[in-house]
């Protein structure tokens, strides 16, 4: 009887956090193109020129 409320609640939380995370990462990639890697000191040397992030 309460299952819809529970599922709604859980999926809203994970859904919103996933979307927010995705938006943040995408924006970060977009902005990072305009900033040299030397100014992004979290970048590992092996990553330069590479693709994905977590």
């Amino acid at each position, binding site marked *: *009887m*309460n*299952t819809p*409320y*529970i*599922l*709604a*609640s*859980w999926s*809203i*939380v*994970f859904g*919103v*956090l996933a979307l*927010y*995370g995705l938006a*943040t*990462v*995408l*924006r*970060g*990639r*977009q*902005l*990072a*193109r*305009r*900033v*040299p*890697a*030397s*100014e*992004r*000191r*979290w*970048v*590992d*040397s092996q*990553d*330069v*020129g*590479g*693709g*994905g*992030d*977590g």
Partner: protein
Amino acid sequence: MTTQLASGAPGSPGLANPAEHGGGPGTGSRTTRALGVAALLGVAVFVPLGLVLSPEDVMQNDLVRMFYIHVPVAILAFVSCLVTGAGSFMYLWRRQLWWDTAACSAAQLGAVYTALTLVTGSLWGRPAWGTYWDWDARLTSTAMLMLLLLGYLALRKAPGTADSQAKRSAIVGLLLVPNVMIVRQSVDWWRSLHQPATINLLGNTRIGGTMLFCFVVGLAVMSLIWLWLLIHRFRVSWLEHQIDRLDLAGALLARRAEGQP
């Protein structure tokens, strides 16, 4: 959390990278990747544990499953606000934009998590209390917190130099701290519909063993996600600052060229 944010900063090696424009992986790093993997594994454990395997409650039946998601989200909303408060304080004291960036990033997360707290609370309230919303002390003060967070984020859009903006924001950011205290204490200070705290670090915790385990797993997993988001968000803000304040392509490269012997 704050100490970690702070102590992470000084004395980092990471300058070795000679590349000018790494096409680069955006805001990710080894740390965030490790965090992300841990968080995803955690979610894979937490969801079946919380939604299926955990026992039902004597009074609330399956509604106890709201507890595992609502309470960690609310706790992280509080933590976000406290980080914003700490960052604001440190900015006003030390005047380093690093702190302002930390405060701003945490405030964004604070707004997301406070909104999620209100939504999950509502969805719990309807079946458990019989209403989505009521103006009791806990709910009212949480709504105030949400408004203050939105005000803070709106203020950040207002025009001004980076420093005047940081100063204004820091003053509002400090207000989040008493507001969080009020939300936290509202169920003890006043008569409210919302029940008092179940998890007390100093007193007794009023929840059965398996449920407590489930909650602890949930809190750990949600904290990992929160930290992952905070780091990425911080780096995005940091990139925004860089782009705003430097005409990077031009000024920096030009000066770098100048600096070469």
